[in-house]
């Protein structure tokens, strides 16, 4: 199924809201996943896997020195808040961060470098591309992520996704829409539907849904 980026945004915003994400956190998460999907990265798949662990668990985190412990919670719940802080610090260590890929969109927008290690290897994301293990990028297992201002010397291997390719993918998404897995979409949509209120006779009586202008 092909969808627009707007539809991804709207689906995810509602699914997060339906899972208890506060106003603002839901919108950041939605923007992050639309960004990833428009670049061929599996934001929706990761989100579906993370949603059960998020339900009602959107909580605050503490900055201790230059370190934040996420306690294994998905980065979709706090990624933007962490990166807001990281922009003002030379470096920040985010411990036990599940699905670090969700940090990538806001980090890319701020010129921050992310670096972490999974079983498959090391991954480094910066404004010169994504280097190291592609499998590690997609691994949701909680990891410790180093967040640095600007780029740092030494990459974790050859780039498997450079900025030009990311831009090409985005252009293609605008031209053709984004191909998504219908089953994943349906499952997330079921969570998103929690934000809707069933129609009631009262609401219709009060003119909701417009009226009939023929008369």
């Amino acid at each position: 199924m092909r969808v627009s980026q707007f539809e991804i945004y709207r689906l995810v915003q509602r699914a997060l809201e339906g899972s208890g994400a506060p106003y603002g956190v839901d919108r950041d998460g939605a923007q992050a996943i639309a960004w990833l999907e428009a670049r061929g990265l599996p934001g929706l798949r990761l989100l579906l896997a993370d949603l059960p662990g998020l339900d009602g668990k959107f909580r605050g985190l503490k900055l201790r020195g230059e370190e934040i412990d996420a306690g294994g919670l998905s980065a979709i719940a706090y990624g933007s808040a962490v990166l807001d802080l990281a922009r003002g610090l030379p470096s920040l260590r985010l411990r036990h961060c599940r699905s670090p890929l969700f940090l990538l969109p806001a980090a890319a927008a701020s010129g921050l470098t992310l670096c972490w290690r999974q079983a498959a290897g090391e991954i480094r994301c910066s404004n010169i591309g994504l280097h190291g293990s592609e499998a590690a990028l997609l691994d949701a297992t909680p990891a410790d992520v180093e967040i640095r201002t600007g780029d740092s010397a030494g990459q974790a291997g050859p780039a498997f996704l450079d900025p030009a390719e990311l831009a090409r993918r985005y252009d293609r998404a605008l031209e053709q829409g984004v191909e998504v897995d219908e089953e994943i979409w349906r499952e997330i949509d079921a969570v998103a539907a929690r934000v809707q209120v069933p129609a009631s006779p009262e609401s219709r009586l009060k003119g909701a849904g417009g009226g009939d202008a023929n008369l």
Partner: protein
Amino acid sequence: MPEAAAAAEEAAVPLRPAATVMRLARLGSFHPTRLSFTRSLIRRMGREGWRFHRRQSTLDASGYGRIVYEIATPRGALSFCGFSNPLAPEERTDRVIAEKWDAAFALSAGRIADSAIERLSQATPHQEAARYGADDLVLSRANRSVRLFDKVAASLAAGKQPDLGEVVEVGYLMRTTAVYGNGKFGLADLPRLWRDAIFSLPYEAEMLTVYMIRQFSFDLIEHIAAMQNPAGAVPLAPITRRALGIGNATGLGMAPFLVSHPMLFNNWILARETALARVRGLAAARPEAIARFGQLLDRAIAHVGQWNTDDERQQARIQRLREELATLRRSAIRSELFGGPRPWDRLVRAAEAEGSLEFSELVNSLIIELHPELVDGLEATTGSPEQDAIDARMSLAALKSLIETRYGWALAVDYEARPQRHLFWYRSAEKDEPRLGERFNEPGAERELPLGIGLMAAALHRALAALPAAALSRNAGEFLLEQPRWRGILRRIQSLAPLPYGEIEDNLLGEACLPIDLLRCKLSIFGAAKFDPKSDRWTRITLFQGAPSIEELGDPEADDWAFPAFPI
């Protein structure tokens, strides 16, 4: 900067304060201006010489079938498909929950292939229930006017023009009930529209779609009349065409937009207020501007005279407006208005101080109309990427003080009082549209949309005020990390700080809130007129009544259709 604009800058008067402009009652009294999106579109199509070609028409004797138009613009081609389908009278409803319509439409990028036309002919009659592609820009549907359509067709078939009075009274042959863009149902995302650069202003593609539906309604009715009487039918006369716009029935679905897109809304209001301030700043009224004002005032008087509604509240407002305009006309004839310095400024201030809101805002629209050279360039400022950001380093003390400075209107409300929390906005499971409920009488408040900006800003202020003094030196970034529940409202407050008109300075949850005010504000910015409220939650309006038709876009007078009135 052109000389005239430079002169106006020198004499600039301050913008009106948000406390005056951004009140629901005033926003709900707006009239269209020359910066309204319908006006900008007509000017642009004329200026750039857009060409329209009927590529295909397969309408049968009853007017069912399709018309496909090609639109040539300097930056590429567009295709507009209109599909007319049979509809049983009992299926014809304007409610958003309808599932069938008289006609369905799509605006697409480029010269689309025949296979795409076939695809759209299958999909568009199902509207929201079908899927579209990234080349499809806008989707819409419309119903024939029960009051007018058949009557006009019969009249044309009989070889005579329809009664102009009736045409003006209804104002349209077809009425849309939704115009969708911006990626809905798989349509093109907005950045795609901007990238192709055919469209550069907000809602431009949607307004073009409505304009093309108008053209479709002309072609359709002339076809039906010709089929009924091939030898004797006549086409619509130019004056009749002018009198026909496109109707629209707008409900609550549109209302939350102004709250959820505050940067865009700011830019719309800022353009309008800047235009007004520029004209108010002129040191003197030139004779030609005075003459033009008189001409426009006469037209506005006639226009308001032809504006009627069954809504008692609105009809009473119209009646008072008629009287105020008549009084203004008497002053204008005596020219007492135009002596002394800054006459336009004095007129605006007098209307604001002594007149009704309807009158004050109509005077503003007239004043803006007088000086295109000071105003029209502002249309380029009406867009916004709606990018907000958090300033994580702002201290909580500074944040608290910012709320006190900018949200005094919100802090003054006692939200503990039930009437101040009477309403809540929610998404209905029925077609997913925004609706309004009564918090203490209806279920669903736990799934409330975050539109009570005043309530949220006041709650954040209370939370900050409860912190120990030492904690106020901490920064917003750490605060949000620890307390994510404030993220949305805090970002909004920070992002809107430099913008004068981002917030509606009224409690949208209060018992006194009239959603119709939000609808009218947005619709007037689109260019809608003849507001005809059917309740405090939905209204009927007309778009493009008085606008030139596609053959007239290049005429020198094509832009002169503010406050259209007709000889009836």
